[in-house]
């Protein structure tokens, strides 16, 4: 039995947990404000909020309901566009009408849900972040101008409102940005969670383990509906970021958002927020996991490229035995892995960057945000003075799997980042890659682009040493 709150209504259902939440909302519940636009998490027309109990509060995030297994709604509060409706238009809805934020109306509910999600989850609102919150929503009519104006208007409304409220959520209720029933949701969810007996483990070996599901539900949503799946996104033992033995350890089930927000990661990778903003969209990042990205083995896997340059290792477990190997040794060919079918990726770990180190991540795609890379690359170096003592460069989109540029990296050891060295490194790099032409670019473009990204690493690392004109 799956038990949750949908808007103001408690749901108990025996539907298959592998059903897309979108289908449950539209077909079972006839709540048709949530739309199907692409069924691959690329348009945001099906955006809903998922609220999860955290202490006495409920934490909300926006997700693509087409990619969310119904089973993952269990014990949660799901909010669709209908869940924001009051008798009159709420101030955000009204702003969207008055500022020209809606034309054909098909994408509109998704935009409103994303923005509501932002306003609910952030007490200190600002216009920039509010607009960022719709990074997973596509509108084909308005050119986004009216939507931005609407977001800005609500930010002003929230900031200018000085009325005292017991808490932020009550303030939003007072502003009529959310209905009053939100206030009782934490209590209601607690009841649901208490009354639930965690369903005993299924003896039958599942056909699929589903964590974020952000690729599985794109590729095989019809199969998921009919398969025996095990949902593991709630299993905390495989998630989280910790430090031990001079290494940073990240659980396989950790989401991109969790990695981005990790103080440990932010300490060593000061620009991590910028890098990771290039991965998918907010709804995708809050679901997509590290293990999913690594095991998917896409040649341009964003997180894999990030961690390859840190010479990470990974730990597999089959429930009985653990096995450790270097991430770089996982890939044997296109979507071919050194992994047994009963192994789960437990965690990844890498040596804490130390001494005089530099790190950079680069990604270029046709569209800068919410797109798959044409080429991406990371570079990590340790320096003694100006001399490179350790180097790892990774590159995506230039081989059948995420690639380590071993020869190039090795060559750099003992060198300085001078134009001559860089040009020689590029020559070596070219002998290591084998790009193909596809929808993301021609082979020659990908080779050129990787050269440019390697230039970018060096220009960033050694701005004083490099005469840009000499390079380009």
């Amino acid at each position, binding site marked *: 039995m799956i038990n949750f709150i949908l808007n103001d209504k408690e749901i108990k259902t025996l539907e298959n947990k592998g059903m897309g939440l979108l289908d449950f909302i539209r077909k079972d519940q006839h709540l048709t404000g949530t739309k199907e636009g692409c069924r691959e998490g690329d348009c945001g027309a099906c955006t809903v909020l998922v609220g999860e109990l955290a202490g006495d509060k409920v934490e909300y995030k926006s997700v693509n309901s087409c990619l969310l297994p119904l089973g993952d709604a269990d014990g949660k509060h799901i909010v669709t566009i209908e869940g924001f409706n009051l008798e009159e238009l709420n101030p955000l809805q009204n702003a969207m009408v008055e500022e020209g934020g809606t034309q054909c109306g098909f994408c509109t509910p998704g935009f409103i849900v994303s923005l509501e999600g932002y306003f609910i989850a952030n007490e200190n609102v600002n216009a920039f972040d509010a607009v960022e919150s719709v990074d997973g929503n596509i509108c084909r009519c308005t050119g986004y101008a*009216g939507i931005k104006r609407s977001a800005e208007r609500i930010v002003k409304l929230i900031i200018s409102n000085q009325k005292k409220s017991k808490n932020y959520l009550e303030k939003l209720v007072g502003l009529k940005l959310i209905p009053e029933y939100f206030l009782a949701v934490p209590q209601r969810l607690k009841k649901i969670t208490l009354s639930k007996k965690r369903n005993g483990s299924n003896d039958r070996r599942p056909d699929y383990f589903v964590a974020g599901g952000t690729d599985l539900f794109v590729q095989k949503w019809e199969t998921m*509906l009919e398969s025996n799946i095990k949902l593991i996104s709630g299993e905390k033992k495989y998630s989280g970021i910790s430090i031990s033995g001079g290494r940073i350890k990240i659980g396989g089930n950790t989401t991109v958002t969790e990695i981005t927000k990790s103080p440990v990661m932010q300490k060593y990778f000061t620009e991590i927020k910028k890098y990771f903003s290039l991965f998918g969209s907010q709804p995708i990042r809050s679901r997509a996991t590290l293990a999913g990205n690594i095991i998917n083995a896409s040649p341009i896997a964003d997180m894999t490229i990030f961690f390859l340059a840190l010479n990470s290792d990974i730990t597999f477990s089959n429930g009985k035995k653990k096995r450790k190997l270097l991430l770089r040794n996982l890939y044997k060919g296109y979507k071919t892995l050194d992994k047994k079918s009963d192994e789960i990726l437990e965690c990844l770990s890498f040596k804490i960057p130390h001494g005089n180190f530099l790190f950079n991540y680069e990604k270029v795609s046709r569209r800068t945000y919410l797109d798959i890379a044409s080429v991406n690359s990371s570079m990590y170096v340790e320096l003694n003075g100006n001399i490179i003592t350790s180097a790892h460069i990774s590159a995506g989109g230039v081989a059948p799997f995420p690639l380590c540029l071993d020869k190039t990296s090795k060559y750099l050891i003992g060198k300085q980042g001078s134009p001559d060295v860089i040009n020689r490194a590029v020559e070596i790099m*070219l002998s290591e890659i084998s790009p193909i032409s596809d929808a993301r670019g021609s082979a020659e473009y990908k080779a050129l682009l990787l050269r440019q990204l390697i230039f970018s690493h060096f220009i960033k690392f050694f701005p004083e040493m490099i005469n840009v004109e000499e390079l380009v």
Partner: protein
Amino acid sequence: MKNYDSERHVRGESQFVDDINPPKGILYGYVYYSPIAHGKIKRLNTSKALEINGVKAVFTAKDIPGENQIGGIISDEELLAENKVHFIGQPVAFVVAEDQITAHKGANAIVCEFQNLPVITDAREAAAKGELIIPPRIFALGDVNSAWDKCDVIVEGQTESGGQEHLYLETQGAFAYPVEGGGVKIISSTQGPTAVQRVSARILGLPMHKVEVDVLRLGGGFGGKEDQASPWGALTALAAFKLNKPVKLILPRQEDMRMTGKRHPYSSDFKIGLTSEGKILAYEVSYYQNAGAAADLSTAVLERTLFHATNSYFIPNVKATGYCCRTNLPPNTAFRGFGGPQGMFVIESAIYKAASVLGVDASVIQKKNLLKEGDEFSYGQRAEHCRAARCYEEAEQRYNIKGIRERVDDFNLKNKLVKKGVAFMPVCFGISFTSTFMNQASALVHIYTDGSVRVSTAAVEMGQGVNAKILSVVQKIFSISNDRIKIDSTNTSRIANTSPTAASKSADLNGYAVQSACEIILNRLKKTAADDLSEELVANRKFNPEDIEIKNEVIYCADRKTDLNWGKLIQSAYLKRISLSAQAHHATPHIYFDREKSKGQAFAYHVYGTAIIEATVDCLRGIYEIDSVKVVHDFGESLHPAIDKGQAEGGVVQGIGWMTVEEVIYNKDGKLLTDALSTYKVPDVHAAPKEILIHFLEDAPNPYGPFKSKAIGEPPLMYGIGAYFAITNAMKAFRPGKEFKLHSPMTPERVLLSLYDVSSLTKKQSKESKAVTSVVK
């Protein structure tokens, strides 16, 4: 004033086809389509599909009771392929099952054997092989051949512009159910209700009166649902008719992208001749239009390219030739601008290249050649109420072009790897269907006894706000509260023989028609009021209808407020057996076009405007941002400024998308590689310009539009062309003197490959990687 539909949109309460609560027993369809681009069907076996539990029927060409033909302008396209297939995605069979997933399984179980035939994907190759859908079309003015001698500079070149996927957020779909007497009713997501009706009647072998089509609204159309909504309506109608059950078909996104046509890619040759001062004397251009496998609307699209070959400029000697080339791609179709953007991209490219040769900025040539009052277009019409120069000059002043250029130059001096570029994009776009007969519409207005008003027109609401504009016309004429007025769905039983909602023309045509219908009723009401008041108001005085005026629901007589109001007046008229309904028809006056001579007064009027676009290019990585688009646009006297502004903003971004990140890629086998939102990218919130300013040209009434307004749907899209040249100008700042190919869209890939020489790189690559380089694209 608000967009009529928008209050429901923001609550998620607007219904689209797939939102209608399905009746019990509804069946779902799935289309089996050709996996090859050209071939003969040797054997089609549907038995395995029928064996699947839940599959109710599979329809093929032989099940069609009427004529297996959906071609609109030319009858050259089957609904379901019978003997031959002409593109990947061409429907071959229609599977109907209890649910969508089962129908999909059924489609997967169909076995079809083909004999492959040669595939053409390139327009020039098709032209060389004589694969033309119609003979070449020529528009000409003056005599180019004798003009070349007078030119100081002659520049020739070739341009490419890419296709564009409509990417309406709501995919194509329809829902049909049988009605008594052997007819069907179709709820369709179409811009052309009558097209769906006509095609379905033809397929079913029924008179049109037995097929009713109703359209609630569209989740975007952009031309993609003008003619290409018809097959889906016809397929559901066929199944509903044969099975006597309701049937729904909603195309999954990937299928929609694979099966439907897009904006036409063009490959073009130009030759432009100028004086040394930059005055254009002659322009010769040939367009190779990639029409795809069937005519669809391609001939009309090509014609509009010819109409707009010279954009906003007067050129005394013009020869424009268009080739409508048949290839093995899905038939390309209408897309906002309808061939206009493709034509304008070539003339702007020609000006850009000529400016490089003359060593001036393109704006110098643009300004020198802007249309003036009375100038002749190549099709013989003359510019009237011409506002080309007014918009251009106002944009220069209002947005301080001198300041912009100083800022850009300064930035470029200070930055080595990041450069800025700025470009002007003037637009002149003709308003009317160029097939004159299509410039007609009708409206039906009912007033009920409680004073509420229900209005039907031929216009389809698809986000462009036509319902709100129609409502404002009704409101202006009756002077009643908006709450009293309901704009109905578009329905072929209430409004017959509709022209599609297209050509930016719907608010004009239907606005005028509804104005006439309302005026008919208003005149009756005024007479009723005059009679009523003559009896009551003042003894011995007889009032005439001309003495009556309605202001905010109150009846005024001879400028005096009376006790009579809207509600009472309607009651009185009803009791006196006065008709409270009217139907009216409107046909745009004074337009004609002679296709034989390619001359005529093709357009009711033209829309003018100018945009200044600024872009920043990261010349290290080849990526860019559009900083700003600053527009002065001629809206006439806007019927609805909020809606018109939204149309302009949205059009700009869609045009920028076409010129930058949106790339439709087919491989040599005719397979679409960009068949999902993960591979076909439209602008997102970050890719949209950081700033869009829209200024309404002041004091610009339009004598040929309802309440002096102007059409708005398409023209702003073409401002997006300026983004291409703003990016190119930034690239030029990085590589002065380098000549770039005139090839759009300007993707990050094209930017980088234009800026750097790759020959040295590829030589160094290992041999094995070269071997796989030629796989696709």
